[in-house]
């Protein structure tokens, strides 16, 4: 391949990293500036990256650029936009959170930007080495972000995340090595060609599938590789949890879809059962374990595990159908979960003393706004119409049904009923119990306005999913 240098397709990442460096250096050099300046600089970086991504929608150049390491397709554009949206909200949350807790640090903004760049790069990498690189960029930034707070839980979470994350990265890298051993290349297209032509070693190829599946399963927190999720979600500053829960999942799933549907497309029949099993266990275990939680952040962590299972349910359908449904699910999940953690942030207060479920007792009387919004998010997580969560569930179920995985649909639907129980429990606490003595939820305006955006998205997309389905369908074609 002729190594021409096409920078437009990675312009979003360049802009993000550039903005990160500017903010990082600026924060050191120019002291005494209001931190709002850095927030806006970061947001400008995110907006610039989003613009650069949108410009790639009608890209008609090479399918992959930079010596085949980065793919250019609509799939990448859509995933980038989701992640960038999440990042923007995460920045706004984080700014408020750190100001409130008196732990404001300039590093927060560049770290989020670096993590975002890693996420977007992960989604568009067309080479396993680049994918690994992106994975490390996003992971390392997130380890630090998790430990950003001085609370003990935060540090503990960061340590756990780091150890287990490093472990999973090793699996991933080992998988990359196996893929190279099997096919003599790490480029997704070349791997696919070699596997399709039966020129590589099948045994090594299958080992690679297994190891990479483990690496991805860690990142998307699918059972049995979910152990870190509750601790990290609980320990991390809530603003970071919100960003991480939505962003990492979207990026990791996007990369998973690309790797499995491109590089291992010839082995579809072999990896489908793996996806099936991961989906089934994640849905059931996530839903059941969430019932036992008494801390809302842990509860949402287990719920995110079961949601990983639902995305995987969609992916049991190979090719476009599966990708389109999973993409929609990811959009739905991202807007819902980032909103839910936003409300948790409001309620938890300075220093996160109030994250237990009992802090939500009588919330409807103390703050109707927070209670109503959290209700919307919880209903969406439970998949009750007319929220976006319902449409998302229907779309993954219909994809799985097309793939003949009706038993998985059955498991998913029944687990939804179990899951409804613990979501309802929070609604019961908020609306049906007398408020206890307690402080009011955070009354600040900025986070409230920010949370209203995902809430609106949950309802609007629930009522008019057609607004995005067209885009997602046209983005579901992976070009290679």
């Amino acid at each position: 391949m002729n190594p021409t240098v096409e920078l437009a397709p990675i312009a979003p990442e360049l802009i993000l990293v550039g903005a990160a460096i500017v903010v990082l250096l600026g924060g050191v050099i120019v002291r005494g500036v209001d931190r709002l300046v850095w927030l806006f600089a970061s947001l400008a970086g995110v907006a610039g990256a989003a613009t650069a991504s949108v410009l790639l929608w009608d890209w008609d150049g090479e399918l992959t650029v930079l010596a085949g390491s980065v793919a250019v397709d609509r799939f990448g554009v859509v995933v980038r936009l989701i992640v960038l949206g999440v990042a923007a909200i995460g920045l706004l949350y984080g700014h408020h959170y750190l100001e409130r807790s008196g732990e404001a640090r300039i590093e927060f903004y560049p770290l989020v930007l670096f993590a975002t760049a890693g996420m977007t790069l992960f989604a568009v990498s067309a080479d396993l080495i680049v994918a690994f690189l992106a994975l490390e960029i996003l992971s390392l930034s997130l380890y630090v972000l998790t430990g950003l707070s001085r609370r003990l839980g935060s540090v503990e979470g960061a340590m756990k995340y780091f150890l287990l994350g490093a472990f999973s990265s090793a699996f991933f890298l080992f998988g990359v090595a196996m893929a190279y051993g099997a096919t003599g290349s790490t480029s997704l297209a070349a791997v696919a060609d070699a596997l399709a032509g039966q020129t590589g070693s099948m045994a090594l190829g299958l080992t690679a599938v297994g190891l990479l599946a483990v690496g991805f399963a860690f990142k998307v927190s699918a059972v049995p590789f979910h152990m870190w999720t509750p601790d990290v979600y609980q320990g991390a500053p809530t603003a970071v949890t919100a960003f991480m829960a939505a962003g990492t999942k979207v990026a990791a799933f996007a990369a998973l879809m690309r790797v499995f549907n491109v590089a291992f497309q010839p082995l579809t029949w072999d990896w489908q059962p793996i996806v099936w099993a991961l989906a089934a266990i994640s849905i059931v275990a996530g839903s059941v374990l969430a019932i036992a939680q008494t801390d809302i952040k842990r509860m949402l962590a287990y719920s995110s595990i079961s949601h990983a299972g639902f995305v995987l349910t969609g992916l049991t359908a190979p090719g476009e159908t599966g990708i389109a449904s999973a993409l929609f699910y990811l959009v739905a999940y991202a807007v819902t979960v980032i909103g839910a953690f936003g409300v948790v942030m409001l309620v938890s207060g300075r220093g996160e003393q109030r994250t237990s479920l009992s802090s939500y007792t009588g919330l409807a009387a103390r703050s109707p706004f927070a209670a109503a919004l959290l209700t919307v998010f919880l209903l969406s997580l439970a998949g009750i119409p007319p929220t976006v969560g319902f449409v998302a569930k229907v779309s993954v179920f219909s994809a799985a049904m097309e793939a003949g995985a009706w038993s998985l649909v059955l498991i998913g639907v029944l687990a939804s009923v179990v899951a409804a129980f613990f979501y309802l429990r929070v609604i019961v606490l908020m609306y049906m119990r007398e408020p206890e003595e307690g402080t009011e939820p955070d009354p600040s305006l900025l986070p409230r306005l920010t949370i209203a955006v995902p809430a609106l998205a949950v309802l609007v997309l629930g009522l008019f999913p057609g607004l995005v389905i067209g885009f997602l369908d046209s983005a579901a074609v992976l070009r290679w």
Partner: protein
Amino acid sequence: MPWLTALIVLPLVGVVALAVWRGPSDAQARAVALVVALADLVVALGMVGAFDPQSSGYQLVEQVDWVASLGLSYLVGVDGFSVWLVVLTAFMTPIAILSTWGITSRVRLFMALTLLLETCILGSFLALDLLLFFVFFEALLVPMFLMIGGWGSGRRVYAAVKFFLFTMAGSAFLLIGIVYLWFQTVEQFSRGSFDIRVIEQLSLGTGTQRWLFVGFFTAFAVKVPLFPLHTWLPDAHTEAPTAGSIVLAALLLKAGPYGMLRFNLDLFPEASVTFADAIGVLAVIGIVYGAVVAMMQSDVKRLVAYSSVSHMGFVVLGIFMLTPESSSGAVLQMVNHGLSTGLLFFAIGMLYERTHTRDMGEMGGLATITPWIAATFLIASLSSIGLPGLNNFVGEFLVILGSFDANRWLGGVAVAGVVLAAIYMLWAYQKTFHGPEPEERRGLLDIVPHEVAAVVPVLAVMLVLGVYPKVALDRINPSTEGIVNWVSSVAEGQEGLPGGLRAAIQDDYVPPPGSLVAAGPSDEVSP
């Protein structure tokens, strides 16, 4: 005029108005809800005016693409099954609102929830797109859940959660069925669709049809509720606030049998015939069991709740005996049960506001203190028992008549339900209103104007339906005839009839003269 969309959207306008209006007084919030609900009733009556009683097909159909790529559309229409249920919904919602004078906390939210419920219930009666139906059917759980849990009595949270989980578990199977049917339309017509007019043209294997039937039926049976899936109902009815009980009993339960008629019979006719007798047995068990348990209750609200189990058994029996009489009776009985049970709950609500008890042991002797409430309760009870001249009689009579035709044993046992109803309802009246006049209750207020405004229209309608049911049956019969013919023709493997029934989908279809039963109980001739 888009009657049906107007019906569905109007309450939502009220919800929005209540949401944006900062700080209305309780009376103002109630007034907004009442005005919106009454306006919706006017629209509903206008819709009946536009409804053509001759046609057995879907009328006033409106269709807008919703998610074109999935074949999902906003598709609403009305026919003989749904027309009166829609009117009933629009009629009972203002009654429910009139029962909320006892509610003093968070009135604005309560009113918004009531209107939201009305939208959801109307939507489920009017949707002809399966997924749209499911959206409404499932969405109505949320406001009902909040209403029971937020304003109920005693074990309200337990009742609310139980209600939610039972119904959601039931509809889980429905969702799988819907997604499977959609998948079949992709396979067979190479274009996905949730439109029931498309889905009923699918050819499904016998085994498949049975599985799907069971999935759909489970969802609806929970809602009815059919024995043995009824256990959520006594709790929910008893703990709900009066308005919640009225909406629950009068309207929400009707979504179950309506779904059976609309979807089970229509989409899975062969399986319907296969399971008809088994379901009939369950229905009859429910009739007798509900009645017997009702006799044992000391809580008057719980008594009425169990009587609902019994009465709804009649409805299900009527549907699955698959005769024109029993089906028409079942549809009419849905409306009747809504009226009489709604009024009973209203009367109990009036009593509870005054005495703060629902225990019949602690009441007694109220007839001389609150004579008008006593009269209301008595008439509602008599209607519930099936006294000729009041509404329930006609429905139950038709159901039993048709059932006798189809299955003598089931019809025979079902009659016991009527007899038992007389026992427990009259006991309830006796325990509540007769006996020595209690000293401490002497000063209780009798019926007040806003309560009169609620009671009188219901009584009037009950009387009209009891004396002249033809006005209702005329519009019900073509549709029930159609569905019974469709099912029996499939069962007998005939080729001729389905085509004609397919044509009935068209709005302009006029059935051949003489093929329909003349309406009215007096015209029914048992063979």
